[in-house]
């Protein structure tokens, strides 16, 4: 797909292709399929629990965008960091956080990833290098660039993966961050999840440059457009971008063309697009069906195998929902804890 490159090095790196990982084997393909399906089923269940009043506040589902979290995760190395916005349930699951602890956070229970204090929009898992889950549109871009600054400072070979939406791509701090990231050659991969809408505003109505992969050009950050509905295309681009960042060449920008099937949050009347538009994407570009067809075509998996996987995932999600429904709320004393780090004496 389309690319923009403001530096010769970037072009060379892309052409070489040598930094891309090996072609995924059958086991890996199945793992991607499984991971995407888990996210899909998990989110459907989360939507249902929201409807029952078990999940409160704002709840932004990731349905339709699964290939991005999963494909990019496949391009990451242990120790790399991830940071994103409020649409993060899928990213957490892709990172290997248990469905139980994500769902329990959604229901506000003590067993949740953030002890029930953060909720749907604010999830963290420090052990896995998952730095949130941020509710303020665009904030994660500067924060993620700061993670990369720490990596460069320590020279530890880690890369920060920073995800944000097409709407967030208009925030000023994104460009302040881009400038510093390139200026200081920070190891960061920016991933714009362009699902075509920011709430009810389409990219065309909010952006003078709608090709968001070009947004780094005036800072000399190479960018490319990627089919975000194809987990393998995502993975390949992710590997390329990560190799660039890890080798000391600085930031890299990926624009993932994707689509969200559900409303912006659960409370979105969705009058800004037609049902037909949504159905068309579901029918023709669905990332899960796409991979399933490929697996079947290559004889990597038969229907019985996918059906078994479906059942197993349904079971895992039902278990997470049941756990999240019955797990206890945080103790009242939690209200006043963790406001400050208790200083070591």
């Amino acid at each position, binding site marked *: 797909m389309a690319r923009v490159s403001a530096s010769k090095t970037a072009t060379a790196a892309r052409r070489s292709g040598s930094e891309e990982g090996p072609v995924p084997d059958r086991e890996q393909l199945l793992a991607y399929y499984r991971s995407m399906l888990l996210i899909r089923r998990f989110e459907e269940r989360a939507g249902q629990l*929201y*409807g029952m009043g078990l999940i*409160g506040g704002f709840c932004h589902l990731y349905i339709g965008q699964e290939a991005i979290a999963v494909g990019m995760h496949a391009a990451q190395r242990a120790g790399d960091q991830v940071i994103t916005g409020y649409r993060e349930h899928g990213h957490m699951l892709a990172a290997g956080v248990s469905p139980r602890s994500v769902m329990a956070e959604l229901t*506000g229970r003590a067993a949740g990833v953030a002890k029930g204090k953060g*909720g749907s929009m604010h999830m963290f898992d420090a052990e896995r290098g998952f730095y949130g889950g941020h509710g303020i549109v*665009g904030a994660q871009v500067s924060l993620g660039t700061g993670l990369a600054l720490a990596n460069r400072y320590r020279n530890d070979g880690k890369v920060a993966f920073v995800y944000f939406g097409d709407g967030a791509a208009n925030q000023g701090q994104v460009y302040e961050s881009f400038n510093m990231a390139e200026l200081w050659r920070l190891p960061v991969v920016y991933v714009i999840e362009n699902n075509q809408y920011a709430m009810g505003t389409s990219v065309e109505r909010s952006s003078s440059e709608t090709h968001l992969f070009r947004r780094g050009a005036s800072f000399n950050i190479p960018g490319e457009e990627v089919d975000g509905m194809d987990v393998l295309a995502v993975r390949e681009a992710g590997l390329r971008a990560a190799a660039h960042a890890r080798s000391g060449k600085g930031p890299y920008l990926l624009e993932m063309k994707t689509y969200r*099937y559900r409303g912006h949050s659960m409370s979105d009347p969705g009058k800004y697009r037609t049902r037909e538009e949504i159905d068309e994407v579901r029918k023709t570009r669905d990332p899960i069906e796409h991979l399933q067809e490929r697996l079947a075509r290559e004889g990597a998996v038969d229907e019985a195998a996918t059906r078994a996987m479906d059942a197993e995932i349904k079971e895992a999600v039902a278990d997470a929902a049941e756990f999240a429904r019955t797990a206890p709320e945080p103790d009242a004393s939690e*209200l006043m804890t963790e406001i400050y780090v208790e200083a070591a004496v």
Partner: protein
Amino acid sequence: MTDILMPALSPTMEEGKLAKWLVKVGDKVRSGDVIAEIETDKATMEVEAADEGIVEAILAPEGAEGVKVNSVIARLQGGGAQPAATAPAEGAVQVAIAATAAASSPATPPPASLAAETPSGPTVRLSVRDSLRDAMAEEMRRDPSVFLMGEEVAQYQGAYKVSRGLLEEFGPARVIDTPITEHGFAGLGVGAAMAGLKPIVEFMTFNFAMQAIDQIINSAAKTHYMSGGQISCPIVFRGPNGAAARVAAQHSQDYAAWYAHVPGLKVVAPYDGADAKGLLKSAIRDPNPVVFLEHEMLYGHEFDVPASDEWLVPLGSARIHRQGADVTLVAYSRMVGVALAAADLLAAQGIEAEVIDLRTLRPLDHGTVVASVVKTHRLVTVEEGWGPMGVGAEVAARVVADAFDFLDAPPERVSQADTPLPYAANLEALALPTAESVVAAALKACYR
């Protein structure tokens, strides 16, 4: 068999109308299919099936109003093994849990004692949401230099539907959808105001105005002074402020004290519909920058609002919502409702509270508060934000300075717990002021 329950489609929804069924008995549905349309006070929403199966029965007929969240609206047959969380036998438990969650949401119905204080002249029954909309529409009709700008204000009709219909009436030149760039468009608004226009800048919520607070304070508030009076900035920054329901720390903050700290700004935070309308109209006409703090939890509440196009409530005047001789309760925004509910509880214990709605925080109507304390000898302040360095601290300090000899007890302050707002329902309920916590503070002030 699976029950399909009336879904909650927003953080604050308790019931809705079943506007339309898109499936009928016997239809096969797949997860993700749109099966019905539901109307809430904000919008019409589509309901998607979360399970597969055949529609066996439709229990809430099309057109049914006031269908409670979580009641069974239809039943599905088949669809393979049902996950535990939706097994019918557990329905009762789910409803019970959901009911607790709903009870802990901070919505407070307007107490009966309010009826006595409605303004004279012909009135209409209006939601706070529509009162605000009418205020903007009337001022835009009156003055062509008034325009509205913000995220989702035009085509989407406002994220909270406050600007419903304005695009249709005034067109895209005066009702402007912006990208998500608060710092930028707030700056554009201030610049346009310096050039003589009268922008209304909507922040989707005031949490996002923190991106723009530099332009509000450094540019809007100070330019008149810095320019030696040459340049003024007639602008209104408005939007919902404070805690909604379960939206957690980054989306639940009361900025009243933050802005009320700043010379050059006027700061307004109305409670009822008549004040919301009259104060917003005054704010738009005011030649200074005004920060106008609304409350999402009040948008759907209905009040009697004067029908007149010239209904103006002056900035800088408090309102006595309820007379009482025993203790003065001072509040603003949603906390006025909490204070009024507390006053009803106190009355049952023989204590008559006077409830003052500050309405404007800067300039503060200090006289009304002092006069009340001179009468009651006791002061309780109520705010949704944090207590330290807060509105209550300011009110108490001024009362101590000016009415020290009239106080029979130290002033009491009720505020949000001194912590970021937690997500968990039980913790959130513990964090926010309630009628009960106001009663406890009042009893303490009364030595009871």
